[in-house]
């Protein structure tokens, strides 16, 4: 966003922060608060976006408890748990990257973000393996459902919720990885400093939100 060309390298080894926007002139603290607050409001919209799917899960689980029980047992617990651990760990590295960027250690932050992106990629790969398995079995939503091992009525409804919820989540993982890539490049250019690290923080917040959604999806889909 900000013009980087005009910014000079300080003695501490990072670029001088960009000027405060004109309408916040003289009050950088308010600007900092505004940027963070805006991100939290955006996260609230994301939470409400997923709310509808959780409501769908709750309704169909109430309607078809046996089918949901059977279907949950047919998900790969190993892959699901691995993915949970991957996402939690990537959240740690993102938090550490934020910590480093805030202290002007841009290179550390860069490598930590790179690791996080790699873990996000790993998550997607595992998800792809799971999806392939579902397609092979015919454990699919609606009229595509052809999975003989689920005998209770309502089996397809589990897979509607499963594919919508994990699909929307995977989309968020992809967006999150793109955001992390964007801030990682800026870390490489040593743009962040103790007074200017909002992009790392906000991209990190987004990534943690992706993590939060998965924290609920994992037990609901795989365990109970």
């Amino acid at each position, binding site marked *: 966003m900000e013009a980087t060309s005009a910014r000079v390298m300080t003695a501490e080894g990072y670029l001088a922060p960009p000027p405060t926007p004109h309408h*916040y002139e003289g009050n950088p603290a308010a600007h900092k608060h505004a940027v963070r*607050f805006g991100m939290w409001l955006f996260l609230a919209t994301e939470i409400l976006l997923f709310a509808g799917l959780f409501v769908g899960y709750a*309704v169909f689980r109430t309607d078809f408890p046996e089918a949901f029980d059977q279907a949950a047992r047919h998900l790969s617990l190993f892959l699901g748990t691995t993915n949970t651990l991957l996402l939690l760990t990537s959240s740690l590295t993102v938090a550490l990257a934020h910590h480093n960027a805030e202290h002007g250690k841009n290179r550390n932050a860069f490598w930590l973000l790179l690791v996080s992106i790699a873990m996000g990629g790993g998550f997607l790969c595992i998800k792809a393996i799971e999806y392939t398995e579902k397609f092979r079995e015919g454990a699919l939503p609606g009229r595509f459902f052809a999975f003989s091992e689920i005998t209770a009525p309502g089996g*397809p409804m589990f897979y509607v919720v499963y594919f919508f919820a994990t699909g929307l989540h995977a989309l968020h993982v992809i967006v999150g990885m793109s955001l992390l890539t964007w801030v990682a490049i800026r870390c490489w250019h040593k743009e962040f400093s103790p007074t200017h690290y909002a992009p790392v923080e906000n991209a990190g917040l987004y990534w943690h939100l992706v993590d939060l959604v998965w924290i609920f999806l994992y037990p609901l889909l795989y365990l109970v």
Partner: protein
Amino acid sequence: MSSSASSAAAGGPAVFPEHHYLNNGTTVRSWLLTLDHKRIALLYLSVVMVSFLLGGIFAMVIRLELLTPGPTIIEALTYNRMFTLHGVVMIFLFMIPAIPAVFGNFFLPIMIGAKDVAFPRWNLVSFYLYFAGAVLALWGMLNGGTDTGWTFYTPYSTTTAQGVLPVLLGVFVIGFSSILTGLNFIVTIHTLRAPGITWFKLPLFIWALYGTAIIQVLATPVIGLVAMLVAAESAFGFGFFDPARGGDPVLFQHLFWFYSHPAVYIMVLPAMGVISETISAYSRKNIFGYSMIAASSLGIAFVGFFAWGHHLFTSGQSAFDAGAFAVISMLVGVFTAIKVFNWVGTLYKGAIAFTAPYAYICGFLFFLVFGGMTGIALATVSLDIHWQDTYFVVAHFHFIMVGAVIMGFLAGLHYWFPKMFGRTYHEGWALVSAALIVLGFNATFIPQFLLGNAGMPRRYYEYPERFQALNVASTAGSSLLAIGFIIIAIYLGFALKYGPVAGPNPWGSRGYEWMTPSPPPTENFDVTPTFAHPPHDYTEDAVGDPDFAHARTT
């Protein structure tokens, strides 16, 4: 009470400022890529007015078709498309962005003494998302022949051969725009208030926008998800809402109305804010019960979230939920009544200037109370079973969404027109058109209450002969409405170029936005204002103007 333009002339002839936001850059690029909230507001205004024109034309076609019991001017299928077009255009393209995105964008920063909204770039992005969504939805409906009605109820919307995908995508994109506007407003109000403007010195329009923005941020994502689900349903038949596959069509209605009921307050809360501003200015009196009006804005925003189920009384929702939603829906009436009593209390012993905006205020109060009271009646489950999906409901929500919201929009347009463009309009014509609109509106929708009560269902192409008299009355009323709007377009268009120069404060208003020249400079204020007095303060000491001596509050 003579025209208030005379009070401006008291200090000598008004001079049009040399530098202002309108002439700061005249290239097309300087308008289309502007980051100035005032110019973005005008961009919104232009598209919103085109949408309103389109929606109005669709409405006139519907009314003309219903002039006779049988086929009149269009075929049955075209009729279905017309009311879908009318609903989608009026709600998503006109009503939701009308007041927040136009007047909110223009006046929110000025009213809190800021130079711009918190995120000017996102503000521009929001406009283009709205524009793209509007084009997509319109194209989708005209090209695909969408005939589901604006509610997209399943299972029809997921099984019809008519195209619903582009419209749903358009709604999704417009939703993003709405979220960005709301988010921007909340952050702006929190972080950009000038020194001296504390929370309880915020103008009431800002409080109303704050409540609106909360709804926009929290409710809009749900309709985004619903639009995606319905789109996926109609494309792949997953069965989320299809009972034959174990899905639940009532779940669609729950999710849809979780947004669409609060969306009514996205439309009407800003209109209420405009009324709070104008009623104080035109009665030359301090607003009565400032904190109550402010709190009830948030109250409506909050309670509005818990009322969605009253749209599902006859849809197979459980009796328990129906009862709960009926009671909560009536609470909305409590908060609305608080506002109405405070507005009437403001008028009491005020020095009322009977201007065009004041005429709209009167119309607003009548429509809001009438629409609100029928709303209380409709929230009663047993009565609703009789009225559900009849013209009674149509008349009720048009009283709120057209009556109240358009009155608020027009009151704001006339009140702020001198500030936005630096010129005043012809008061006589304004009063004529206001009278036409208020009368025409009543003539259009009061017959519909009677039709609905007599049992005429909504969205029907044909009707029995005995309903014709009232339908003719309704169509005649809508023609009056149309004439009124055309007159407004003519005299406001004329005033844009040839109207008398307004001066900074033609109304003698005490609102913060009148402390800067008209039209305002790009930076909103030439010199830092001090905001010494609270908003809506017409007491003698604060004004220091003998004209206002009699309007002191006691």
